[in-house]
Every structure is written in C-alpha cells, then in structure tokens.
C-alpha cells in the first residue's frame, strides 16, 4: 500500500483534539460577536480615510485578538503542554515523522485554524462595514493588521517557549496568564514614564514588541496626542519589521529546542 502522509494525519489528529465540538463553533461565534459588537464605536468617525480605516480595524480586532489569545492559551500552553506532560507527543514520536514536523502540525492546528477563522471574520466584517474603503487603502489595511497581530504573535512565541520549558499544561497556562498581565502592566508603566519624563526610548522599546504602538504614534492616536513621538510611516513600518524579526527568532529557538534538545 502506498504510504500516506504522516504529517497530514498528525495535523488532522491535532485538529480533532484542539477543536472538538463545540469549541470551534463557540470561538467562531465569539469572533463574530467581538468583531461586530465593537465596530459601532468607530463607524461614523470623521477625518482622512486612512485614519477612519485604522480606527475601524483597531476597533474590530481588539476583542477578537483577545479571543485569539485565549485560544493560544488553550491550544499551546494547556494543549501542547498537556500533550508533552501526558505523553501524546511521545506517542507521535513513535511515528516516522521528524520532530519539527510534529511541532508544525501542532502549531498549524493550534494557531493556523484560529487565525483562519479570525481573518475570515475580519475580512467579512471589513467588506460589510466599509466596502468602498478597503481596496483603495489595502496597503494600510494590511499594515494595520500585521502591526496589531505583532504583539500577539510575539506573546505566542513566548508562551511556546515557556510551555516547552515547563512541559506541564496547567503550570504553563498559569505562568502564561501571569506573564500576559505582567507585560501589560509593564507596558502601561513604561508609557507613563515616557509621558512623565518626555523620553521616547521606553516607547520605542515597547513599539518593537508591540508595533501597533508605532502606528498609533504615526496617526497621533491617544496617548500619542500628548506624548511627543511622531514616527514617519517608514519608521513605523520598520518597527513592524523589527517585531517580526523578534517573533521569527522566538519561533526559531522553539523549533531548535523541540528538535534538538527537548526530552520527552
């Protein structure tokens, strides 16, 4: 018999476990709810079309990104951590499949499906809410999405590494939640210090980890109406690029560790 595709089988198996009924249905509903419920706040905003689009996208992705984060916690911290802890990964490692392929299958299931759902709902919402503005401003639409997703991807990379080091689902989940809130608090403190001292260095560091900050500063969105930092679009784009270099590095480390070092 012709050999099947082990990678696809592991991927299918992971999807089956990550999104068993009604998890996918609930999260699809929450994505749709989160997208449309908050869209109302920005509809009717005045100003240049670019800023209206930026405001619309920011409003409709805020809650869905948080929902995506919940899926990251569920599928990576708790899911992958639990799989390492209980021994499912050990079982997968008895199949003729490279370690990196197993991790890819797990990540595609954990993040790929969640992102597909997220962007599907977002795209639908954009064409419903602002049908005439999307295509003419497609570069800004894309940049805004990439910038807003940057922090979540950065945090996903951190969670992935934490999970591999802890190797326990429950503990990785707790540490992940604590880290998330700690980072949020640290960001607020840094922005406050920047506001108090007038120094832009702390904001630039934050912008590297969360490039939507640079884009907000470019558009002079609150709090950058009072903080004196106004990067150009090119500079803001560079922060986005820098952020994705960091994300790529985190995922590279995770893959390297999983493939070469991780004892199961």
């Amino acid at each position, binding site marked *: *018999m012709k050999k099947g595709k082990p990678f696809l*089988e592991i991927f299918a*198996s992971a999807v089956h476990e990550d999104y068993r009924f009604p998890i996918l249905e609930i999260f699809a509903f929450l994505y749709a709810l989160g997208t449309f419920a908050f869209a109302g706040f920005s509809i009717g905003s005045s100003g240049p079309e670019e800023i209206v689009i930026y405001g619309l996208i920011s409003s409709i992705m805020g809650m869905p990104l948080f929902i995506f984060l919940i899926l990251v916690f569920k599928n990576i911290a708790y899911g992958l951590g639990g799989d390492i802890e209980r021994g*499912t990964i050990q*079982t997968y490692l*008895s199949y*003729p*499949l*490279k370690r990196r392929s197993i991790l890819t299958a797990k990540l595609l299931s954990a993040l790929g499906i969640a992102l597909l759902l997220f962007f599907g709902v977002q795209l639908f919402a954009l064409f419903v809410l602002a049908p005439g503005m999307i295509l003419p401003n497609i570069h800004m639409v894309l940049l805004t999405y990439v910038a807003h997703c940057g922090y979540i991807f950065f945090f996903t990379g951190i969670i992935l590494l934490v999970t591999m080091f802890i190797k326990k689902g429950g503990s990785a989940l707790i540490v992940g939640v604590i880290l998330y809130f700690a980072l949020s608090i640290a960001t607020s403190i840094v922005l406050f210090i920047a506001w108090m001292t007038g120094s832009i260095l702390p904001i630039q560091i934050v912008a590297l980890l969360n490039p939507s900050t640079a884009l907000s500063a470019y558009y002079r969105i609150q709090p950058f109406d009072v903080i004196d930092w106004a990067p150009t679009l090119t500079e803001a784009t560079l922060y986005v690029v820098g952020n994705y270099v960091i994300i790529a590095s985190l995922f590279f480390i995770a893959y390297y560790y999983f493939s070469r070092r991780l004892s*199961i």
Partner: protein
Amino acid sequence: MSVILAENLTKHYGIVHAVNNLSLTVQENSVIGLIGPNGAGKTTTIKMVLGLLKPDEGHVEIFGENPWDNPDLRNNIGVVHEKNYFPAHQKVLNYLERVCRIFGVPEFRAREVLGLVNLEEANDRQIKALSAGMLQKFGIAHALIHKPKLVVADEMTANLDPLARSSLLDLVLKLHKEEKVTFLLSSHILPELSRVCDSVAVMNRGKVWASGKLDELYDKFSARTVRIFTDQPEKLAEQVKALPYVEHVSIDSRGISVKVAEGKEDNLYEDTPKLARKSGAKIQGIESESTSLEELYRQIVTQQGEKQK
C-alpha cells in the same frame, strides 16, 4: 547482529544519577528482559534508547543508527510506554486506521491487531473511555500495527488481568518464533519475564549489575540448593551441616534443603550416601531445586550490592 547498542549511557536529573554509565546490547531475534526495582533507571534507559531523552554522556544505536529524530528507524520499532497516552477524543478503530495510514500499511491491519489483543469489542469507543487494562491492550495493538522488527515495551503487562497477561506473553513468544521479532521488555514482574526472555539485564541504581543468558546467570549467581528426601531429616541435617561447603540447611517433615557453595553441588551428591549410612537415615530421593528468576534477581542484587559497599 546487534539491534540495540547502548554504550556508557549517563543521565542525571539534578543531583540524581538516573542512569550511570550503562551499556547494553540487544542481539537480533532475542527477547531480553530489563529487570530492576522501581527507580532502577529502566524507563530512563528505554527513553534514551528510543531517542526521547538525550543522554548526558554515551551514545545509542538502533539498527546501526542514532535514534534521536531519525524517523525512518521508527518504521521498524514498536513501542509500548509505561503510561500510554493517545489523543483521547478519537475512536479506537479510527485512530488505529490513522496509524495504519501513517505507516503505510493497509487499514484492515487495525482490526487485525485489535483481534490479537482481544479488543475488538472496543472498536467504536473513544480512547478516553477505555479502562486502564484496555488502554494497555490498545497500546500493545498500536505498537504492533506496522509489524515492527523490534518491540520495546516498558511494563507491558501493567494493568492487565492474569488471563490477558498470559495471552500477551503467548503473543510475544509467537511473534518471536514465527516473525523473528526482537523484544526488549522491561518489567519488575519477574515470573512473566522468565517465561519469555532468553536473556536478562539486571538494573539497579542506574547501572546494569549483571546481564546475559538466563542459564549463564543462574550458573554464575545462584547458590545451588539441593533437596534431599529422607525419613530422618533431623539426623541427616546434623551430618550435612558439618560439611565445609554447605552454607545453609533447612528441615521439614519430608527432608532437607541444602544450600551449597558455587560448584559444590556434585560433592554433596557424592557425600550424601555416606552421611546417610552414618546417621542411619534412608535416602528417598535427591534433586537440585530450580531457582526462580526472582531468587536469581535477589542473589544478583545481594552479591553485587555487597561488592559495591
């Protein structure tokens, strides 16, 4: 040809030496038992052999290759872990059919292996709904699905009832004889291993304390016990105790059991008729008592433990 070659394996967990400079060879078409108490390092050794754990020192080869992230090797290896865990929400038959597709074997093999372990009735159950014993059987079926040349099993019969254990050991013997499958079986249930293994490696404190063919180990480590049936056990025992090579004599209503020093069994056979005449006892029979694997294990641990002190 050696199927598994492990040389100088060492693994530390902090200050604990889980495995300490361990070497192990498993020859093709053999059934080798890895025996030892809890915490001896059996599972850690097996994990290093399978490429799940990286040794701090030493190296492992399976079929001449490094098992760490070498996926092609796994087409020839079946693994039963001490704690089996499979994707919990999938159905038994569906998951095994998926495993068939992964290994490129026909899907009807899934039903075949479920039949081998008497688990056909659980076809449509979710894996999470299996009892501990059923999950163990499922793990064994899963390990055999691709007809591996080598099966590595850690506590394979844990959670199984005596009947299931017995039929599983029959299956091991059948696969070994008919399909030339090599087995590395770890267990602390020694009577089972003595039924199927041709060699054993005795582990304790992260080291192999003794290894080899069972017969050789019996010769080397077990102090021979000779059973003498007589009508006057007390009188005969008094005479036998005086012999210089006798280590211990126990008496019961039908005779005496005499433990002799290594290699002195024949001397006792020669001396017994003389002693019987002297004491006026009538000898009704004399035979060597066989040593169980459990006894052998105890002897090895005692002797090697004393050497290490």
